[in-house]
């Protein structure tokens, strides 16, 4: 197991190094000259040249890349062109918000989706299964801004239970933020629900066909033991991977939901940075996102290996 962990971590480092290079190169080829963007259309050519030299933009690309990467690793993520402030605290506070929202969403959606998926799988093609499948699939078809607005209409305006605006103030504690997290998390849950439930259902149906299930039943074990101990252990393996990928999406892909609820997450920050051609900010947000994705995948792989001995010992 330890060797497996080391190997996966090695892969993780290589992935990060590679993506950082890609991020760096891509941002180099975004249209527009950075110095010109910062100084504005009216600035003189001499001033632009001076700023280019000051920012090191005239150095060869490899030099720029390693300088950027080195600084990044040391915690110097640079100054945002648009807000003129330190990037790191900004990104980290947004990351914290996104993590909170992602965690709440997973806490709501995973148990719900897995339960529904297992129930559907155990009752394949029976009315229960059909109801679950049709409901979850029709919900996933709705765009997030529709479900979001409907939820706001019901819970914020009609029932007056939860706030419609989720713009949590910087530095607020988890308990303070919690009420504002519920509606965006529910909206994201609607997107994930069908996806995870369908996969779980397929996993359960597939495993129920395996001969070891018959062996377990014919041992005379109680039916619930057969399902919980023998079937689910194998049936939920694919679900683990999907949850991890969803986690990455929750960190950085919730742009629409964050907009609907005015939620200060990483997704909105990235859109903001791209709008303003804020290169250092784009680089920082993307790299953090990639890191979150990669870590989530690593955790998924480790969990997968933990629950699947056939992988662990290879």
């Amino acid at each position, binding site marked *: 197991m330890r060797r497996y962990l080391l190997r996966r971590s090695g892969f993780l480092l290589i992935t990060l190094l590679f993506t950082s290079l890609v991020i760096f190169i891509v941002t180099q080829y975004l249209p527009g000259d950075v110095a010109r963007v910062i100084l504005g259309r009216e600035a003189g050519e001499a001033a632009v040249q001076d700023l280019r030299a000051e920012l090191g933009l005239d150095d060869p690309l490899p030099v720029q890349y390693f300088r950027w990467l080195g600084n990044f690793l040391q915690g110097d993520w640079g100054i945002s062109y648009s807000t003129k402030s330190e990037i790191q605290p900004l990104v980290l506070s947004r990351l914290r918000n996104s993590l909170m929202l992602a965690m709440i969403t997973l806490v709501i959606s995973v148990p719900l989706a897995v339960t529904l998926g297992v129930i559907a799988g155990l009752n394949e093609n029976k009315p229960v299964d059909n109801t679950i499948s049709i409901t979850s699939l029709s919900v996933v078809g709705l765009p997030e801004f529709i479900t979001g607005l409907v939820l706001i209409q019901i819970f914020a305006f009609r029932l007056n239970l939860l706030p419609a605006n989720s713009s949590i103030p910087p530095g607020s504690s988890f308990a303070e933020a919690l009420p504002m997290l519920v509606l965006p998390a529910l909206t994201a849950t609607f997107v994930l629900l069908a996806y995870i439930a369908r996969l779980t259902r397929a996993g359960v149906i597939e495993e129920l066909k395996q001969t*070891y299930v018959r*062996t377990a039943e*014919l041992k*005379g074990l109680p039916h619930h033991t057969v399902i919980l*101990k023998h079937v689910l252990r*194998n049936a939920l393996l694919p679900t683990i991977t999907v949850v991890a990928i969803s986690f990455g999406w929750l960190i950085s892909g919730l742009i629409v939901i964050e907009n609907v609820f005015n939620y200060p997450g990483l997704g909105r920050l990235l859109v903001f940075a791209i709008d303003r051609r804020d290169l250092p900010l784009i680089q920082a947000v993307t790299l953090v996102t990639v890191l979150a994705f990669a870590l989530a995948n690593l955790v998924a792989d480790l969990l997968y290996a933990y629950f699947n001995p056939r992988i662990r010992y290879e």
Partner: protein
Amino acid sequence: MTSLDPILSIENLTVAYYLHGEWQDAVRDVSLQIHPGQVYGLVGESGSGKTTLAMAIMRYLGVTGVIRSGKIIFSGRDIAAVSQAEMREIWGAQISLVPQNPHSALNPSIRVGEQVAEILRIHLGMGQVAARQYTLELLHQVRLPDPKRVAESYPHQISGGMQQRVLIAMALSTKPQLLILDEPTTSLDVTTQAAILDLIRELIHGTTVLYVTHNLGVVAQICDRVAVMYAGELVEDAPLEELFNRPLHVYTQGLLESVPRLGETKLNARLKAIPGQIPSLGARPQGCVFMPRCWLADESCKERPSLFEFQPEHRTRCHHWQELIDVQAGAPRPTGVDLPHLPLQNIPSSGDETAPPVLTLQDLRVHYAISHTLGEFVQRKPARQVEAVDGVSLEIAAARTLGLVGESGSGKSSLARAVVGLVERTDGQVELLQASLPARLSQRDIETLRQLQMVFQDPEEALNPHQTVGSTLRRPLITLLGLSAREADSRIDQLLQAVKLPPEYKDRMPARLSGGEKQRVAIARAFASNPDLLIADEAVSSLDVSIQASIINLLNELQAGLGTTLLFISHDLGVVTYLSDSIAVVYLGRLMQIGPAGGLLEPPYHPYTEALIADIPIADPGARRAPIRLESETPSPLQKPTGCPFHTRCHRKIGVICQTQAPPWQETADGKRIYCHIPIEQLQAAQAPILKI
């Protein structure tokens, strides 16, 4: 209840599955009784309903299966009528199952020990610690070395034979009143099968057993009483010796005759195949179910025969049992019927030995590289490899058949694939008709492809499911023989005729063919290009015995008619000795023995060959043999033994020399070559003929 009462009494049981919108009987009107301590064999081919019957006894028929009528009286009560919850108290405690395919029958992600221990906790009320302790004892009882290590392993970490031992330990742990064994050795190698049969025979002593199998050899070794099933019905039921010596149903007799007996060859006996095929679930005839395939059938058979009690212990569902007795007593078989027993074909008894060989292998090697782990890569360790074929040299004369025998992992399939070009050989020479064959398929020209064809094991997978039989056969005719479309079409009819399929089959999709018919199409496809060498890799292994015999006869006829050279690969020594002119035995990628087929069954033989022959279950209850049980199991090809590859299991190992030095090739007077350190004379003196032919 006295001890004479049966443990299990099945009365007029009918089991049906809901298929294609209607109920179809998989088991029809079956009655049988199993008495305490009896080992009751249930024999049948695929589709006979034997497994359905076994599962019905356990009341485990899935959502589509249902018991339509009849009773299953188990220790005094009718379990056809008890609730699911009550069955859970019977399962594992009073009736246990040892399933087929041990590999898939164990949960892959739970440790082996826990999978045994959970039964003990639930049925014997043991605590965690006691259950764990008793598990180790049980694993020890089934002769597993190092029970502790096995208990802590996951199923994929132990071999198939060991997995089956674990399942046997599980089934016997609660001392059930009835033990059902469902083809427990079918997926295992011959030597492993022999060891598992030994174990079963030893452990079931006193237990009442229902042994479900298709293998008459296994039945003869282990059962007291046998019921034969066909197309869902019990057609005959008799004590073991009685059934083998005096079968009273045409099907039973056909089954017994369609398996080549050891010592029978194509030169001295033609296999008596049962014509036709097993009817599918929806297409079972009214009247006698065997009528369409029966050579004794007449008008009376349109009425379903009742189960006639010939003797108190011997029952048959056949109108014509008296005629069978007459035939067995030497009466001529009635004429005027289309006998399946065609006269012996004119098979060349010897090929032209002076002609150059069709296929020559010289020091053929096929090694598979195992990819590095990151650690090994960083430390620049040399690549590990599996030496699947490790220096094999042999040749096959024109129009002759070489049988290649070996257990799983022997490299026999890799050898075939390397010759055909499906894998690239690592080293060595392959010559086809004196021309060197390029290792890579892409470097071979059309003519080479035409000369060399292959028939695969599984006909289900060998045919493209989206192409009609006709277009499957047309392809090689056009691409390899260069025929025009019109010429090809007329050849297709001839090909179908050659494999005894009606011409209208050319428009059929493979899904509408039975397994045997698919294999006929696969053979027709292989023969389409008129090849010089045909490689058949386990080509009859997946077929039922009654079908298998007709395919073997077909191969023989085609070879005799066309002069094709045949490389016939199989794990079934009986089939190989029947069909081959010479035989090569492989073990862990190396030849152990090679020589004329006639000499294979007589000493001296290589100790491995000796064990293989001794371990074949023979379909004759009277056969008595000195058993040879090999130690341990075939080593992993990754840890190939030094010296003689067989020394780790050899029962005749003579000392360190076997471990350190590669054995010499020794040749006997009759042209048999043996790869062993033991001098021929000593082998000859030590080895008794295993079989009396």
